[in-house]
């Protein structure tokens, strides 16, 4: 079965096609932050260069975040549109899972960290298990200090990866001695491989069942009456 993967949850735009023979074609651009302008031409390019027609696809895989609101929305909208038009199922995989899976061969706790802007980061913790990774602490959003506190509390050998780990390298290593290396962004090739395995197990869902992971602050009614009240 051929899978089209779409990854737009970070600054990177990634498109890949793969199947039982592995990843066939990959397109990744990590500069410019032009998700809306880049994504559709990228899908067309990848299909044309690999000689694959859209109608041959059996499943659409998307990175469902957490990550950039603006980027995720572009990727999810495009993925859902394709899924509906082609009448094929979708598979959503979290960005943090993708990052962690790339480092599944290390013998340490893996902590993917994605830049959430406004001086906050998304992170979760994983440990390597045979054949993949297992999440040991759930996805969280918060200031870098909270991440460092979390690392200190766990107090184990840790590998931090992702654009958030890179950006806040000094803050993290100052608070907790750990290694920061590995990929900056989730790999869209990895997305296709993981999705293929799940598609074979018939874990695909309808497009309306795919939801982005925002991890944002709790919703509340805007209190217009106290508008302007000083903190």
């Amino acid at each position, binding site marked *: 079965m051929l899978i089209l993967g779409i990854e737009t949850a970070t600054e990177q735009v990634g498109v890949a096609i793969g199947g039982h023979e592995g990843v066939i074609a990959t397109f990744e651009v990590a500069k410019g932050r032009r998700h809306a302008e880049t994504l559709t031409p990228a899908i067309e390019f990848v299909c044309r260069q690999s000689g694959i027609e859209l109608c041959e696809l059996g499943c659409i895989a998307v990175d469902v975040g957490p990550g950039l609101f603006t980027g995720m929305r572009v990727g999810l909208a495009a993925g859902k549109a394709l899924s509906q038009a082609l009448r094929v199922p979708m598979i959503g995989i979290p960005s943090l899972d993708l990052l962690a899976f790339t480092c599944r061969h290390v013998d340490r706790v893996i902590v993917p960290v994605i830049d959430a802007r*406004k001086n906050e980061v998304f992170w979760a913790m994983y440990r390597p298990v045979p054949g993949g990774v297992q999440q040991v602490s759930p996805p969280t959003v918060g200031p870098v200090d909270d991440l460092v506190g979390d690392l200190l509390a766990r107090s184990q050998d840790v590998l931090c990866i992702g654009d958030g780990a890179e950006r806040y390298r000094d803050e993290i290593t100052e608070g907790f001695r750990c290694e920061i290396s590995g990929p900056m962004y989730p790999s869209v090739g990895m997305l296709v491989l993981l999705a293929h395995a799940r598609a074979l197990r018939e874990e695909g869902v309808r497009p309306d069942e795919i939801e982005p992971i*925002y991890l*944002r602050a709790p919703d*509340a*009614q805007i*209190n*217009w009456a106290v508008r302007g009240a000083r903190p």
Partner: protein
Amino acid sequence: MLLRVDDLTGTHAVAAAIAGVARVGDVIVLAGDMGAGKTAFAQGFGRALGVTEPITSPTFTLVHSYPLSRRLTLHHADIYRLERTSDIDDLALPELAAFNGIVLVEWGDVAGSALGDHLEVRLNHVDDVDDDDDGDAADRDEPVDQPVDQPVVTSGDDFADAGTREIELRAVGPAWAGRWDRIARAVESFRC
């Protein structure tokens, strides 16, 4: 920092001065009652950056974007019509700023921490200042979970563009603190 302008031209001049100090990644909150000059400020700000299209209030379209170059887009948002903080989050305004943007947010003072570091520009009719204080005090006595009310309108000339305004500048977070001296110099002639 408290400024005073005598007319619309003054509001435009202050906006232009702040535009000269603003840079990519900035979020600027425009606060104040209806007719206080929030959109006028946005117009002066946009002109100073080189926007040639008419700048109108985005109350019903939520966000207007004015691409100025590959490196800069001015986004003008108005959250007056929104009722929930998740609606504000959906607009992802800090991301728009981070992506080669400068973002102006009318009524953004209700959004609190959702906007991250920002500069708050509060515009007030000078004649209204006392009335506003009374209004705010009365508002705070009301239960917090009351239905969303329209902001209190305290005077009949709210939509008038003429008249003296007080403009209060306040930095929220460190992004603007480092530029405070430059802002102070840029708006020196309007200081109270």
